């Protein structure tokens, strides 16, 4: 699992014995200690560590919640309330898990915007990036399944809407739908299945995260200048420099998390989900969790059901084609004066789509959703290819050090120790 020669030298006899049989210590050493990190990384690059922390938080709180949760249509709602009321610190576990999911998405959206803004998807990092898109897809599935588990009104009707969407898929749609339902409507078997799948998918996420880190290990990190590491001075070792920065950023992000968890635990949810699921009563507005709203707006922008479903899934899948849709050879938007503006407009359109997704699908909202949906796809299909062809990029700095200090000036400190010039430095 190594794209680079490890610089790890085992010292004790036991360590030597072990390393010659399973070089896992060397692997961790070369991935998280000696790994060369571009010295100009800004705080956007700390979100990988933040995401890893949240994957851990979600898995730990989730395993504990599963010990008390009862996956059945009659018992789910009350068992969640039992957790809230009678399990020791059950309220903490549940609110941490529910708000942790939201924070996970906040972090992943920052991480994704970073990748798009600084061109982290371009060669040689296409596979690294596509693995990221797969993780995002798995996260969405996991979050949706998790939201159905408390079996409140939004859980039930959200499950109904989404499974009906899947039925629109030609040929296999009905089969997929009845497989998920376990019957002829959303009901007791559905909760059971969703719980099983909700427990399964995080481990798949963890698996793809390992591949994601592996691919990162091979290609090295992109950086705000978007140029490769050229000498030892351009890089610093991961530990302690990136480690301490990641830990600092993670702790700061935890303040935001703690704020929601302890003081606004239901702010990001929906009041209707505290009403037990009732197939006979439809809520006035069925709205998904905030992190799905942009895609919900795209789904509802199209009058045709199948067309809406296709567009909604395309909106995610199109991300995976970014490496080939973008024709510019410059990675970082810092050196792309025109595309850079489109990037911010794109971000604005995404926010707007999110807000439109929370509004009722009528009148002006639908028209606005259609305009924004068109722009969303135009960004990938028109702006990305055309900007690369017509834009005159600004001159790139000679090196990462130069991008920091300006041309011709020196920087103090050694950077990477001599001889530690591992493969990522020349590949990026």
């Amino acid at each position, binding site marked *: 699992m190594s794209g680079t020669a490890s610089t790890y030298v085992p010292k004790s006899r036991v360590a030597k014995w072990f390393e010659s049989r399973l070089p896992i210590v060397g692997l961790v050493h070369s991935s998280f200690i000696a790994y060369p990190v571009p010295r100009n*990384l800004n705080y956007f690059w700390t979100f990988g560590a933040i995401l890893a922390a949240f994957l851990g938080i979600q898995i730990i709180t989730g395993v504990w919640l599963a010990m008390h949760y009862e996956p059945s249509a009659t018992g789910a709602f009350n068992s969640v309330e039992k957790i809230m009321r009678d399990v020791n610190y059950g*309220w903490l576990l549940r609110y941490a898990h529910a708000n942790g999911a939201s924070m996970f998405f906040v972090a992943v959206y920052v991480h994704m915007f970073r990748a798009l803004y600084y061109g982290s998807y371009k060669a040689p990092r296409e596979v690294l990036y596509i693995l990221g898109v797969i993780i995002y897809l798995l996260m969405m599935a996991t979050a949706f399944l998790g939201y159905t588990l408390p079996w409140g009104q939004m859980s039930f009707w959200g499950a109904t809407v989404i499974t009906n969407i899947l039925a629109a898929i030609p040929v296999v749609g009905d089969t997929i739908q009845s497989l998920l339902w376990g019957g002829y409507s959303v009901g007791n078997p559905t909760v059971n299945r969703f719980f099983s799948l909700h427990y399964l998918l995080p481990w798949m996420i963890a698996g793809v995260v390992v591949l994601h880190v592996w691919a990162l290990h091979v290609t090295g990190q992109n950086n705000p200048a978007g140029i490769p590491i050229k000498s030892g001075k351009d890089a610093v070792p991961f530990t302690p420099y990136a480690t*301490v920065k990641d830990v600092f950023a993670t702790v700061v992000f935890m303040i935001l998390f703690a*704020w*929601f*968890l302890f*003081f606004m635990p239901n702010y990001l949810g929906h*009041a209707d989900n505290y009403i037990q699921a009732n197939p006979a009563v439809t809520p006035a507005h069925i709205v998904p969790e905030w992190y799905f709203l942009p895609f919900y707006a795209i789904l509802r922008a199209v009058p045709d059901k199948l067309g809406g479903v296709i567009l909604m899934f395309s909106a995610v899948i199109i991300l995976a084609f970014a490496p080939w849709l973008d024709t510019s050879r410059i990675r970082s938007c810092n050196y792309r004066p025109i595309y850079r503006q489109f990037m911010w407009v794109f971000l604005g359109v995404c926010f707007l789509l999110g807000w439109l997704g929370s509004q009722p699908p009528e009148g002006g909202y639908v028209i606005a959703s259609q305009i924004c949906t068109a722009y969303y796809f135009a960004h990938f299909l028109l702006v990305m290819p055309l900007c690369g062809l017509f834009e005159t990029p600004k001159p790139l700095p000679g090196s990462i050090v130069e991008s920091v200090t300006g041309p011709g000036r020196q920087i*103090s400190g*050694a950077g990477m120790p001599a001889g530690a010039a591992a493969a990522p430095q020349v590949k990026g």
Partner: protein
Amino acid sequence: MAMTRVLSTTLAAAMAALLLGAPARAEDAHGGPVPPRVNWSFAGMFGRFDEAQLQRGFQVYKEVCSACHSMKLVSFRNLTQEGGPHFSASQVKALAATYQVKDGPNDSGDMFERPGRPADTFPPPFPNDQAAAAANGGKAPPDFSVIAKARTFSRGNLTFLYDWLPFVGYTEQGPDYIHGLINGYKDAPKDFALPEGGHYNLYYPGHIIAMPPPISDGQVTYPKDDKGQPVVPETTEQYGKDVGAFLMWAAEPHMMDRKALGFRVILFLIILSGLLYYVKKKVWADVGGEVHGLQPELHKAW
């Protein structure tokens, strides 16, 4: 360069038009009066439940609401909880014993009735939802266990932008709605078609509510102070506040623990992040300092 400026200005203007244009339409759909904001003792970072108020609120629930509304998830023992009504154990034991609870089957296979115990949940007023619906004009009165978290209202389209912020934030829609609803019974406007058996309520979605005005001034007798006067006015306004606070507690019995722990956690995280900031600065000083944020150097030329 000029062209890109024009481009971004045009797009910004288009977006602003969308943002400003859409809410104007939304007023028609979601408009309507918003329940007034009550100055709750439990709101905000340092909010605490007022024990006396929770006890009065429980009295209102017990004497008035519980005739129709169940509270199936709350146990008698919860009433002794600190950070709750905090009744004494003996008070609650005596209270529970006044209820008849269905238990069984016993050794001979029969169900039987016995006096309630603190570990029991509040017995519902109707044996099942169908019976509740049949006795109440076709619709079962909702359970009250989490009602304060299950009700909300919209104050406009963009309040979500600041409702989560410290000090200006607002998360008490639930109890405000309850207080508003109890005091929201008004005569229907002349052109309003009120169906048979319906009542006009200012804050109920659609304004037609099946529940008749649930409580009136002086209906519940509150404890008296030294001079023989009620500690708080025996008015619908006050009943609404007290029962709103009680139902918030019933929905969120650990709120005070949560806020107390949260304050300590956030304080800890702020101190820890301060220390980590300086550790990071010291570490990075070895390699000539770190590059910050969005790299102003890169933006100067632009």
